[in-house]
């Protein structure tokens, strides 16, 4: 059994999550790179399905992940562009909330990830003795954006809001 995920706030604009896996980095890498595998572990949230999981994980490539609530059909998702890929070691991508086809969607797309309150996600893999240590750093454009993510998570104690859910879930 691996130690549970550890979340912390290493700077004003970042959230850091660490976890280790009992598998070589080559396999962890595949689980992050291949849509069919990604879906297996990112779509398991009870009450939610993952109808869209498209990924072109090359530098300049784009990805799109969407989740749908079984209960009311509400959707949320993420989209972004791949900035950096070092096989079996590192992936960096932007992450924007994808409002999709919702009636209350904001219309035109924002000019950049920063304008959209998006973030840059960096995932690193480091293998030692057959264990792969994974760090995920979510860097927001500003402190205000990070604060907004933090504050949203606070709503009514344990009641999870969509905004936090998508911010956190989508990095996976």
């Amino acid at each position: 059994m691996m130690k549970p995920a550890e979340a912390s706030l290493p700077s004003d604009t970042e959230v850091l999550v660490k976890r280790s896996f009992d598998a070589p980095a080559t396999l962890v890498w595949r689980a992050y790179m291949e849509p069919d595998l990604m879906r297996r572990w990112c779509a398991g949230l009870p009450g939610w399905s993952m109808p869209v999981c498209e990924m072109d994980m090359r530098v300049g490539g784009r990805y799109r992940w969407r989740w749908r609530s079984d209960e009311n059909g509400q959707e949320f998702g993420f989209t972004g562009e791949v900035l950096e890929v070092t096989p079996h070691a590192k992936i960096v991508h932007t992450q924007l909330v994808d409002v999709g086809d919702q009636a209350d969607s904001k219309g035109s797309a924002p000019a950049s990830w920063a304008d959209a309150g998006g973030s840059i996600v960096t995932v690193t893999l480091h293998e030692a003795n057959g264990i792969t240590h994974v760090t995920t750093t979510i860097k927001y454009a500003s402190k205000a954006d990070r604060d907004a993510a933090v504050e949203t998570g606070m709503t009514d104690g344990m009641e999870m809001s969509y905004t936090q859910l998508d911010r956190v879930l989508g990095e996976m």
Partner: protein
Amino acid sequence: MSRLDQAFVALADPTRRGIVVRLARSEASVSDLVGHFSLTQPTISSHLKVLESAGLISRRKVAQSRLCKLVPERLKSVTNWLEQVQEIWEGNYKRLDALLSELKQVETKEQKR
């Protein structure tokens, strides 16, 4: 800066975390804390100011001294948030554990062939 964010910043400092741990036991005056931490009074006071504006402690006047008291709800809100974040990620990571052990088995089988 939001209050919750202030709380995170306040707790990023080891001395301030020490003060919080000390106040979790009981109320204390500034001079109690000066004695406990062997720091100067202005240093302790500036740490207390940060903790107070973050809503993590409250202060009240008793005779000549000001007593500092922990605000446990505030501290709880900080730990709750990180716990929530951890829970969501951990849910996914447990599924990833299962997937990886499956992939490992497949790999072993293929090597045996």
